[in-house]
């Protein structure tokens, strides 16, 4: 409880770190902040070329099918693979200055979240231009699912960033894990393509219900099933509690082992 209060006291720091992250990233480049929109757009063009011209998949508008899942996946993947180093990378701050340690993972995840929301602007533009359109009726679910994904991502970032301080290999290991994880999550295919008997196993993956829900909202323009949402919320909250607990237990020793 005290920790939460203190994090709130340091909200200005979180805001400033997020701003530094987003603004500092493209400083010095000619197009600057515009890259935030340009990167996903170019990515989309590549996918469109590859999947509608060269390698035709059996799914209608496959590039959109992929893109709506890839955006939230990228958000999650960045949080895990890069975010796990967020304490280590700020070693200078951690060993020299006091502040609630949670600020670092929180601001990293928040910066990635803002990045994803900006990418959604591109996505919505593409959905409208391509004639696919959007269904505003199901957007209420969008906010819920963004929240759930953020809880999950933050929980795991807390967990892995704390572990990484004590075990440096974690970062490298995670970049492999996250690649495998992507193939085990219905990002490039739909759950229906998974053999029936393996499907329950797929739903043990906390990202499965989240990706399914995003695709429901943007691609199928329909409300996600309640069971999908509840499953996502359940696993998100569990990861958050686990990550928070591990972080809380280990944060006092960060400065000593770094």
């Amino acid at each position, binding site marked *: 409880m005290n920790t939460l209060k203190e994090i709130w*006291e*340091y*909200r*200005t*720091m979180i*805001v*400033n*770190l997020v*701003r*530094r992250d987003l*603004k*500092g990233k493209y*400083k*010095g480049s000619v197009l600057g902040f515009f890259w935030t929109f340009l990167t996903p757009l170019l990515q989309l063009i590549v996918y469109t070329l590859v999947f509608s011209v060269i390698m035709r998949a059996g799914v209608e508008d496959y590039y959109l099918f992929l893109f709506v899942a890839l955006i939230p996946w990228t958000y999650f993947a960045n949080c895990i693979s890069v975010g796990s180093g967020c304490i280590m990378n700020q070693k*200078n*701050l*951690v*060993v*020299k*200055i*006091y*502040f609630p340690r949670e600020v670092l993972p929180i601001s990293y995840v928040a910066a990635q979240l803002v990045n994803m929301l900006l990418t959604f602007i591109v996505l919505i533009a593409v959905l409208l231009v391509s004639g696919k359109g959007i269904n505003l009726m199901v957007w209420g679910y969008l906010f819920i699912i963004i929240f759930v994904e953020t809880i999950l991502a933050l929980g795991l970032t807390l967990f892995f960033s704390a572990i990484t301080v004590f*075990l*440096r*290999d974690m970062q490298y*290991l995670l970049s492999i894990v996250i690649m495998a994880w992507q193939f085990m999550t219905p990002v490039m295919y739909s759950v229906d393509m998974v053999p029936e008997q393996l499907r329950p196993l797929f739903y043990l993956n906390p990202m499965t219900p989240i990706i399914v829900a995003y695709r429901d909202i943007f691609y199928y323009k329909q409300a996600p099933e309640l069971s999908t949402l509840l499953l996502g919320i359940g696993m998100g909250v569990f990861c958050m509690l686990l990550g928070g607990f591990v972080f809380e237990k280990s944060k*006092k020793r960060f*400065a*000593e082992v770094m």
Partner: protein
Amino acid sequence: MEEQNAIEVKNLHKSFKVYLDRSYSLKDFLLRGSGRRKEVRHVLQGINFSVKKGEAIGLVGHNGCGKSTTLKLLTRIMYPDQGTIELKGRVSSLIELGAGFHPDMSGRENIYINASIFGLKKKEIDERLQKIIDFSELQEYIDNPVRTYSSGMYMRLAFAVAINVDADVLLIDEILAVGDVAFQAKCFTKLNEIKQQGTTIVIVSHSLDQIERICDKCYWIQDGKIRAEGNPREVHSQYLEFMAKSNIRCESDMDRKIDRHSGNQEAVVKAVRMINEKGELTDTFTPGENVRIEIDCFASRKIEDAVFGFGIFSLDNQEIYGTNTLIDKMPLVIEGDVTVTCQITCLPLKQGSYKLDVEIHTPFGFDYDYWRDYMRFYVRSTSTEAGVLHMERKWNHFPTKLDGEKEEV
């Protein structure tokens, strides 16, 4: 906690596990489990002190004595194994300057980032912004990216932010050496001002001088315990005396000699001694003492133009004095074992630690043997004279004789 205290530290213990193998990777973990080679180092072994509101204290001690650890525990970067720390009010630490600065962002933006890391809220930073810019003297550059700043400008900005946090307790670690002399003076004035306003200050420094200028009280930490406390000047002279005699320093002297030694070795310095006026071998003196420097050397051939010299430096490498036998017009011809001595009849140095360089070279400056930082010596006294020198002096007073009065009488 007592009412008038701002800091209370009770029975502080802290030990570290020092891992002797360099890195710890997954491979080690899998192969050896947690069986890493380690040793436990008890850095703090029961530190007790309390600081009154508005008081400034200094912590001194040689490297590794635990003073920085104490400060880190006060800052809550680390946590004690045993004992308690109580602090009243907002704590700010000047341990790291310019934390979180982004080189591509403007000075103004970096003020916000840096100040927020110290725990200031947006409104509080807005209020202080002008004060910070004024203090840093960077008005016209404040909207330029920090990467275009000189290192002096960078440190000025960083210090300006840190000093304007308005903490109730300010913890400072070895950072007062920022900027040029004028800016340093400004920082000192500001620190004193902050102290007058009732901020409690804790300083860790190797510069005893800085501590004497700001602190009301000083704690000397030795082997994780408080060895002495009280008036800074008195504590410091005990500390210097101890340092002069301790083995720790001698060991580090040996380390120093290894890489501070150059020349073609046709003549080598075998030993250097400093002798006090009682004829004793020592390295601790008092101001104005009669001191003799003796240099034993060995020349492998007959050298007809050897020049012997020595130089005295402060710990921050300012040359205080230097001379040699060429300057003093004393030609020397040496062969085999020779001892050269130089008598300094009245040592003109005030309290402090000094380095001694010794050299044998040709009149053209080509080194036979040159020892930089050959040894350290210490001058101790309880006098509070200022500057770098000690002068033999005598005060007197009498009624002023005016020319007019003379005529009347």
